[in-house]
């Protein structure tokens, strides 16, 4: 039999398949890459660690796209110190064992400052590598307070309010709505385990009558919801990394515990793609920790730009705004430091950013950093409790309670 022919054909087939895959992926990446715009001179290289194919891809790519948009926008307007920003991108697939090599690779490609847009476990692993490299980094969409707490936190920064502020806001909300007994439905990821710990420690205002946990890739949560129902809470708080788990939780809660007030973290508001997963009306009345306020003039500008680039139906999320701000904070810091060659000076420049008006939160909300303040948010004004309407889309601020905010 023609063994050699079949083998030959197989080889060609395999190679063709591989080539196809690489050509396809390569082409896609090239198309998104920002160009130098009107800026000239030696490019300033920013490293982006983006999970674009792993478990964090569904949310990392939302921010990743806006990071590219922000870089392009800055370059079009003349760049930073007249020099263009240039992104080098690597993918860690949210695998912590790949993170040290990925960050080192970004550094070896000339990156002097990094943006970390990946799973929380991967960013946790990145902290010690940052210390080894001596490069400052921003995790634009991080909300877990432990990311910017010791150990190894000298060089990592986050923008948004973290769970500490969330606890105060939830407590205010529960008081306003007369809620004293809370049930919790949570997923089993380490990310959320860390978040829950920090969040619940600050919420002595309510009694936790039940805390139920489901697998993050669960297909069914009726057992957990049945237990919650038996505990008879006044309200249920869903804490999850979002996506399918979050929606499944609300589908199940909506049908089995209709009438019980539901609260959630920020992720559900940041993932428009997952709203479509919900059963009709399942998200109605759900209140989440939003940070997009359409009265903020900077938010309005970003919305305009996003609609221009991504089509009129594009729903802006906090991820977009935080990614946008992260790049602009870097621009600010690089200008202050007069370049990127001195990492120490750049790190100090980031710490010297005070009262930066942000693109998310209320109009008066600002970000400030310092040697001991690696978390940008100034006060709870970056947060806003937002209610979902019957069309499974956020309908606006919750009337009962909003975080107090000095104008």
């Amino acid at each position: 039999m023609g063994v050699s022919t079949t083998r030959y054909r197989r080889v060609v087939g395999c190679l063709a398949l591989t080539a196809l895959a690489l050509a396809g992926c390569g082409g896609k990446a090239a198309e998104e890459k920002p160009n130098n715009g009107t800026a000239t001179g030696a490019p300033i290289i920013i490293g982006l660690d983006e999970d674009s194919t792993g478990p964090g891809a569904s949310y990392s790519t939302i921010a990743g796209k806006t990071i590219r948009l922000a870089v392009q926008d800055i370059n079009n307007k003349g760049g930073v110190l007249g020099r263009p920003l240039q992104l080098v991108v690597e993918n860690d697939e949210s695998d912590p064992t790949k993170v040290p090599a990925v960050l080192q690779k970004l550094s070896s490609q000339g990156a002097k400052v990094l943006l970390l847009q990946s799973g929380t476990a991967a960013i946790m692993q990145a902290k010690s590598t940052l210390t080894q490299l001596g490069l400052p980094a921003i995790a634009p969409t991080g909300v877990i307070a432990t990311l910017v707490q010791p150990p190894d936190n000298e060089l990592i920064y986050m923008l948004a309010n973290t769970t500490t502020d969330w606890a105060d806001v939830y407590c205010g909300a529960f008081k306003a709505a007369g809620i004293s007994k809370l049930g919790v439905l949570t997923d089993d990821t380490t990310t959320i385990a860390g978040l829950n710990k920090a969040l619940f420690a600050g919420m002595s205002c309510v009694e936790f009558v039940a805390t139920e946990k489901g697998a993050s890739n669960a297909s069914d949560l009726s057992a957990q919801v049945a237990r919650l129902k038996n505990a008879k809470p006044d309200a249920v708080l869903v804490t999850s990394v979002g996506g399918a788990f979050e929606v499944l939780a609300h589908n199940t809660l909506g049908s089995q515990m209709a009438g019980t007030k539901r609260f959630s973290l920020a992720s559900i508001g940041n993932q428009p793609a997952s709203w479509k997963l919900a059963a009709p009306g399942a998200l109605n009345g759900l209140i989440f920790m939003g940070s997009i306020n359409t009265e903020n003039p900077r938010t309005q500008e970003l919305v305009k730009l996003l609609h221009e680039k991504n089509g009129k139906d594009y729903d802006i999320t906090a991820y977009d705004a935080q990614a946008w701000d992260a790049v602009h904070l870097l621009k600010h810091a690089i200008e202050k430091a007069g370049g990127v060659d001195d990492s120490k000076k750049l790190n100090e420049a980031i710490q010297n950013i005070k009262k930066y008006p942000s693109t998310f939160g209320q109009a008066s909300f600002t970000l400030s950093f310092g040697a001991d303040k690696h978390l940008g948010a100034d006060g709870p004004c970056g947060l806003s409790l937002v209610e979902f309407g019957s069309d499974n889309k956020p309908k606006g601020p919750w009337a009962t309670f909003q975080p107090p905010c000095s104008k």
Partner: protein
Amino acid sequence: MKRVPGSIGLVCGVVGAALILLWVGADGYKQTLITTTATYALIALGMYVPYLMAGSLSMAYGAYAGIGGYAVGLISARSGLPLILAWVAGPIIAAALAVLLGLATRRLSGFFLAAVTLLFGMAFTALLVDAEGLSGGSGGLGSLRKLNILGWEPTHYQIVVGSVVVVCVIAFLLDRLRMSPWGVIVRTMRDAPRAVEAAGVRVPVMNLVALAIGAAIAAVGGGLFTYSAGSVTPDTFTLNLVFLAIFMPLIGGSATPWGAVLGAVIAVELTLNFPVIQTSGTLILALGVLVILLLAPQGVIGYAARLARLVGGRRG
């Protein structure tokens, strides 16, 4: 001249390692690539013992590597003991756990064993999150002390060299072990357990020993990664890594432990150092594995050996 068994592999391995170390030099990125490769290689070598020698596929290697990693983290953070003890304690604990798990699953083999050990690995991650007081919970352990061996503090480059040496030594020892009487018995056990049992060898005991050795080696790898990366979390050693470790010996060639090492080099090269931006490393690796399995079922080493035979004149 009397030839020491396994010397060919050792010579090739040492030459390869020396070339790699020369290539690395002072480049931080390349150094990290090497420590990652060494970690993968150690986990793959750990799996090699029970999986390719005794024929039992245990998927709990994420847990064993995790124990090695947490040993480093805990000794550094919670005790004043010399850090080097972590590489003694971690492997011993991992081996003990492997024996316990091996006892609980002694009647299982093949796919059944794979399923149960996989569930064990998942439960172990859950336990690390739950056992907050011991493991530091979801944040894991970080800020490790520097290694200090009798007053000598190795630099990062020395750690890189050291990890390469450890990998070579373990691969060489496993190669010797494979050809030793014990190795022959274990390999026969895979193909004909009844015959071995009839010859008076306690097959279950042999199996447990193989599992324990494998777990201990994986724990060394976990410790190495934790030390060079500087921290460990419950999610550090994922299921993905376990699958990678299954792929590696097949890529390199399953006939000798050096195949696992070569497989780790190729896997890291394909997933981390491949010049195509942003493409999924997993996809490239999966396609690479398929191509190798179809074209060179004996792995790269087997293919090279056949090529060498062809060049050196056909014999048999």
